[in-house]
């Protein structure tokens, strides 16, 4: 008996990962589409209000196109100084607190109890959005940049400690093993084997957080935590869209500056 060459198919379709049955797939897709249509239909659109809003948008746009830096300059200046001060101090304090918590949140360095505690602190800090913390802290400390400083410090902890802890968990364990094998103590292992591996990342994260804190300082000012956000809020309340436009332009310029500055600095890492 002669062996014939095997016949291979000429058509191939990517196999379905979920719901292998085609009818099920169609049903689920149809249900999702129906839900989307119904959900969109539940918004009541009042066209008169939309039209009114459009004319207001026109006034915004008009104000923003002719920004007024002059007439409220002393308010803007004070808001900027407050914002920059709370951004810098909150980042420094936040990083200082984050480093020990980040180390404690790395599973490969500490016993399970410390790990659990530090990860819990991180989770609390991360689950509370800046605006919510700011509302509470303004209620506690009153209006002004102190509430903003504490808010941003607290929010920085969740961000930096988590990313630092994750980075420590991914270091090269062989370098740690080698330093441990020399008879080094825990602190020496931390300083000689772990710090060199995570330092560039920590500096990068801190610079990035500096950016974020400045942007957030503009948001939390709106709920009373001082800074440029408070100035912006006042300007909008007074229908001074030209001053508001000026403030937004300044915020954009500073964020851009921070962006270029930090990417320039990060080039020297690694």
């Amino acid at each position, binding site marked *: 008996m002669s062996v014939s060459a095997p016949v291979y198919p000429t058509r191939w379709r990517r196999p379905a990962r979920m719901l292998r049955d085609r009818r099920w797939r169609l049903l689920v897709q149809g249900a999702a589409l129906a839900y989307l249509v119904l959900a969109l239909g539940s918004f009541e659109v009042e066209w008169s209000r939309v039209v009114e809003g459009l004319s207001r948008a026109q006034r915004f746009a008009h104000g923003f196109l002719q920004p007024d830096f002059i007439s409220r300059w002393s308010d803007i200046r004070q808001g900027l100084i407050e914002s920059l001060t709370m951004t810098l101090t909150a980042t420094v304090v936040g990083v200082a607190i984050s480093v020990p918590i980040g180390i404690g949140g790395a599973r490969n360095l500490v016993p399970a109890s410390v790990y659990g505690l530090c990860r819990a602190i991180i989770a609390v800090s991360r689950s509370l959005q800046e605006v919510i913390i700011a509302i509470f802290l303004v209620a506690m400390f009153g209006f002004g940049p102190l509430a903003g400083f504490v808010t941003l410090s607290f929010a920085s902890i969740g961000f930096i400690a988590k990313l630092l802890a994750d980075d420590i968990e991914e270091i090269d364990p062989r370098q740690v093993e080698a330093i441990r094998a*020399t008879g080094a103590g825990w602190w020496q292992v931390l300083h000689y084997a772990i710090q060199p591996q995570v330092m560039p990342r920590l500096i990068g994260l801190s610079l990035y957080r500096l950016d974020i804190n400045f942007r957030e300082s503009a948001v939390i000012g709106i709920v009373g935590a001082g800074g440029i956000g408070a100035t912006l809020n006042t300007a909008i309340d007074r229908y001074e869209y030209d001053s508001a436009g000026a403030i937004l332009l300044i915020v954009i310029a500073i964020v851009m500056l921070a962006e270029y500055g930090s990417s320039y600095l990060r080039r020297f890492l690694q």
Partner: protein
Amino acid sequence: MGTERCRTRRSLLTSGETDVLDLQQLTKTYATGDTALRDVSFVVPRGQVVGLIGPSGAGKSTLIRCINRLVDPSGGRILLGDIDLAQVGRAELRRQRRRIGMIFQEYALVERLTVMENVLSGRLGYVPFWRSFTRRFPGRDIENAYRLLDRVGLLEHADKRADALSGGQRQRVGIARALAQEPALLLVDEPTASLDPKTSRQIMRLIIEVCDERDLPAIVNIHDVPLAQQFMHRIVGLRAGEVVFDGAPTALDETVLGDIYGAEDWSAMRREHEADRDAEEDTSRRLAEVAR
């Protein structure tokens, strides 16, 4: 060469006060229930370099990591001098680890530190934290670090970052770091696994030389049997966590190697080695032709 042979014979015969390391019924069972080592016992006298051979998974790596307790053994005794390393507490373990230098498979240098810092890290067990933190090591340590870098031929690279060096150079830094500890015992884990054949021989020769200079005993995990036969004073063969051979490199014959690696795997390894050697000879011949 003659003196080396002499030492080999002497080391094999003598025992008692020249013994540095005495392993007694060393056993390691992992939490998963896998037995990595079963009743491993042997003695390493001063100045002897012992090659540990065996297929991967035989427990070579576990064995040397048990000695400095990077892995905790489940049973048995590890006598370094008259101290049982299997029993010591944390603080004493740190003190004992200073006496055990270790050289690693992929060098395990701290990549972002300078060569000098890597060598000085061998002194960490001897200096207080603040001195290591501020990099103010005692003058004697620094002088010794320079001397070791000179010995391994890297004096001019002291201020480079470790990741700027080639593989062979990195392993030389690894050797200098281990020697900076002024160890009483050297543990060497596959020192040549990530190096080319020529560099492998240079590194192996350097390890043997520094051990001879200091009368330092060493245990070398090595998967390359011909390399082990060429350089080691004595061979211990491990299979499935048990010692199946212990003797002079010359006593390693086909039967013994078949026993350690399994007959089929051993002949495959030998063929591979011969192919490597032929390729290398071919390369050097062609290089010679180019030079001419």
